[in-house]
């Protein structure tokens, strides 16, 4: 398989004590495409995410990210905040992690921390209130406003994030991740807990992020209607290893995938087979 890969995961290993959560996993994500990582519960998907986004240090293997300008970054060597700051990888969390006591707008302002930090001359210029800082702040508010509008939360900009309904919080978290202007957006179960209408809206949002911003997306998802509808490429994991990959269509018909889901959870297996048909 050839193509323009933004992310290459190469024989990734992750051990916790004696337990192997991810075992020699290799896959790639194409630039400006949506790649879905699916698998039964406990397959190790979130662990892979945590390795990519620097929350875990992999026990082995390599994770390479290639930017548009050809700059290559080895994610397994970066950790913590540098993944977002230098490698431009943003993420959301399975159980939403907003700043609940801050307003929606403030949440998006925090996301622009590094750009604003530079603009405020590491606080000194900002403390003096220089015009260049005020300009930068205005631009940041404009960017935040744009994203609030994109996710349909403009009228709730001044409400506390913790007061928003669940679906709004999910979208706000995506908007917040996009405010870091990432090259790769990693979404951990973005459709979890959403109703059918909300999840339809999510599909549109993600497609528009791919088409308009040109951001590559990697997502973990259980909701097969989301996976089947918007993914360009699907990677299936079970017990820490890859068992299949390909187009949504190909994966859905793969007997190994069906077996994995049947073995794990009958309802999920039926959902896999029925959705998209």
């Amino acid at each position, binding site marked *: 398989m050839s193509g323009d890969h933004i992310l290459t995961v190469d024989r990734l290993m992750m051990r916790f004590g004696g337990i192997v959560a991810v075992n020699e996993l290799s896959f790639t994500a194409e630039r400006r495409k949506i790649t879905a990582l699916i698998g039964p519960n406990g397959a190790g998907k979130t662990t892979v995410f945590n390795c990519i986004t620097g929350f875990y240090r992999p026990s082995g293997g390599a994770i390479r990210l290639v930017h548009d300008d050809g700059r290559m970054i080895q994610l397994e060597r970066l950790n*913590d*905040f540098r993944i977002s700051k230098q490698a431009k990888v943003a993420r959301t969390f399975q159980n939403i992690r907003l*700043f609940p*006591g801050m307003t929606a*707008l*403030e949440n998006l*302002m*925090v996301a622009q921390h590094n750009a604003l930090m530079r603009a*405020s001359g590491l606080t000194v210029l900002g403390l003096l209130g220089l015009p260049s800082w005020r300009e930068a702040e205005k631009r940041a508010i404009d960017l935040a406003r744009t994203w609030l509008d994109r996710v349909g939360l403009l009228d709730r900009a001044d409400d506390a994030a913790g007061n928003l309904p669940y679906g709004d919080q999910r979208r706000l978290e995506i908007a917040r*991740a996009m405010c870091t202007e990432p090259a790769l957006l990693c979404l951990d179960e973005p459709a979890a807990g959403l109703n059918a209408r909300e999840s339809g809206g999510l599909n549109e949002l993600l497609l528009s992020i791919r088409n308009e911003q040109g951001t590559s997306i990697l997502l973990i998802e259980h909701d097969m209607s989301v996976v089947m509808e918007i993914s360009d490429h699907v990677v299936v994991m079970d017990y820490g290893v890859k068992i299949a990959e390909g187009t949504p269509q190909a994966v859905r018909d793969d007997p190994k995938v069906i077996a994995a889901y049947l073995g794990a959870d009958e309802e999920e297996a039926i959902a896999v087979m029925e959705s998209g048909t």
Partner: protein
Amino acid sequence: MSATSARPSPAAQPSGSAFILKKALISALVALVLFSLMIGIRTEAGPQGGLIYWTRFGDLAALVGTVFGGSIIVELLRQWWGPVDKDSIVPKPVQSAFSFAGRWLAPALLVFTFLVPVIFYNQRYILDLSILVLTYVMLGWGLNVVVGLAGLLDLGYVAFYAVGAYSYALLATNFGLSFWVCLPLAGILAAFWGVLLGFPVLRLRGDYLAIVTLAFGEIIRLVIINWQSLTGGPNGVSGIPRPTMFGIPLTPGDDGLAAKLGIEFSPTHRLVFLFYLILAMALLTNWVTIRLRRLPIGRAWEALREDEVACRALGINTTTTKLTAFATGAMFGGFAGAFFATRQGFISPESFTFQESALVLAIVVLGGMGSQLGVALAALCMIGGFELFRGLDQYRMLVFGMAMVLLMIWRPRGLVGHRAPTVFLERNQAISSDLVKEGHG
């Protein structure tokens, strides 16, 4: 853990006089056992070095009786008050009145503060007390950066206060540097110590951070006590120069301010000067804090308090963010310490005990974690309340401790229960503190 979960249903509370009596009896019985030896018998080292004792059964009986009566009253009050929701023990109308008052309270308070030396010019005691209150307002605002904004629990704040005080005292007495040169130095040194401590310990979370900062505060105090050649040990440093008004001393001499202005000298001049000095320093602290909150660094502090993991995912360097919060708070503590030294003219390790840290922390928490106005009000209440018990010197800390426990039970989120956003598009609406996190570091 949310405040709303797992509260026992109020309807299940039994009532009736038999129940009240039984409860009061049990309380009295518990009190009897608790106090039997501690109150009933008083020990003292006798004249020959041995131990003597005498009984105080009258006091014991009175105390147990008080507990019995108090228990009945509390229980009656509780039933009369009805089953109350702990979070809204203050009725809604009062709360909204409070938030309305908040809008003009701050300016009114500020104007009044400016006028204090005019109104109370002849009352030394009030001026002295106001200076003390303002010192704690400043300390509270300084610690608020660390605890209220960044959500880092610091139990050793007094260490930075001590570093500031000793920096000024030692630089002034040994090298003859003036207050205005030493003030920034004291702040910088305190901030430096803040970074030095912060660097290794800020990885720790929650209670661990609290206990390490406490230990650090104690280490600083013990070093001050034992490093006698530098600090004078338990005897402290005396003869610390009083501040000058930009070089003009406030003394009765010919080159003093009074002589220069051609007015009669009065010791109150210096007091008034000190008052405006600490007021200016406190207001500077406040201004810088308000300013910082609206800058990326301040937002990062608050975001850190809300969710550290999310901060890391957004590319925020949490270590440096915490360090700046720690250093900023420490710097303000250092300034306040330098002021304390110049005001007292004498400092000793006794002024920098853990109780001092606890007092400032209580001011911040009672103020409502992050609210500038709340901290100022809390400082006023705490120090004012402390003064009320001046006559009962021994009982002061006892009452303070009880007040801390009761205040926490009554208002765990402090006096001002909301947070003002730092930026808004259309509506500047306050956020209920039930949503605001308190940090885990």
